[in-house]
């Protein structure tokens, strides 16, 4: 696990000790940065950077779809329902970046839950369903895995990006860190 995740956990621990509730952190911090740091500037992206925007957009759908399905398998576990709403906002943010930079996303069907035309994303989703179906604990561990994966990918994707894109990816990463905390808390309860 990388240093960023560890330092973030230390930060959250300190906030909790100081009396800020986890629920408050979960509901506000992921998007507060966007409002405060939003810049009206945009720049020209390289083709490679546009490719990254497109892939991250497709990948964000993977998390949302997984939580939608696992939420139906385990309706008494509210973590999935809660985080799937947040993941929809992640998709919205990633989509907005694509639109802003002229990346054509018309071939991605956001409404087709659990269906991915790219084989590696379908394989990920299918595996998450197989594992998550075993037990609630396994399903929560799937959530934990997804969030760690997203954090790593967003960190990598943000490198070298202009500030507006990097800011959005950092906000999404903060959201994923919050999701990770929520899944870890749920795992400890399960």
């Amino acid at each position, binding site marked *: 696990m990388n240093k960023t995740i560890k330092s973030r956990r230390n930060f959250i621990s300190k906030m909790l000790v100081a009396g800020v509730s986890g629920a408050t952190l979960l509901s506000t911090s992921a998007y507060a940065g966007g409002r405060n740091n939003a810049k009206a500037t945009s720049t020209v992206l390289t083709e490679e950077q*546009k*490719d*990254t925007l*497109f892939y991250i957009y497709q990948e964000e759908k993977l998390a949302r779809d997984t939580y939608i399905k696992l939420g139906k398998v385990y309706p008494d576990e509210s973590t999935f329902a809660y985080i799937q709403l947040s993941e929809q906002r992640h998709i919205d943010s990633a989509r907005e970046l694509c639109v802003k930079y002229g990346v054509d996303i018309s071939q991605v069907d956001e409404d087709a839950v659990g269906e991915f035309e*790219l084989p590696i994303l379908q394989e990920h989703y299918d*595996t998450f369903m197989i*594992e998550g179906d075993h037990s609630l604990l396994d399903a929560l561990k799937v959530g934990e*895995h997804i969030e760690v994966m997203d954090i790593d990918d967003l960190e990598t994707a943000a490198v070298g990006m202009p500030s507006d894109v990097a800011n959005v990816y950092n906000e999404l990463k903060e959201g994923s860190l919050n999701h990770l905390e929520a899944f870890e808390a749920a795992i400890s309860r399960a």
Partner: protein
Amino acid sequence: MLQPKDIIGVYYDALYSGDLETVKSLMTEVSYFMTLESFGLRLSFRDAAFKTLLEKVQEDGVALKKVEELLSKDMLSREYTPNIEIQNIEDNGDKRQTINYTEDEKPKKLYFSKEENGWKINYYAGRKVA
């Protein structure tokens, strides 16, 4: 030079026969590591040691070789031979193509970019470029 539409069949045959050396030859390096991560996920959930190895494949050649060995056996054990039918080819510029096809009647696509050593599967090449 193999064309993207011809690579699709070779890719599926190689992947599900555990021939990862061929799979590697059909892809960009980044896409190959993404393939290992994706198709290695099932083993990763079942085997903590494999998961640790998988996390190190990009910087550790020994870990890469072990992951390829174990994943090769796993892919073969799936005994999956999908029916692949090419639907259409989209040119996304001089050096990119998207192949739309069905895998057991489910719509799928793979992106390709033209590299120095031929057409390669490239998961990042899904956009049209001028």
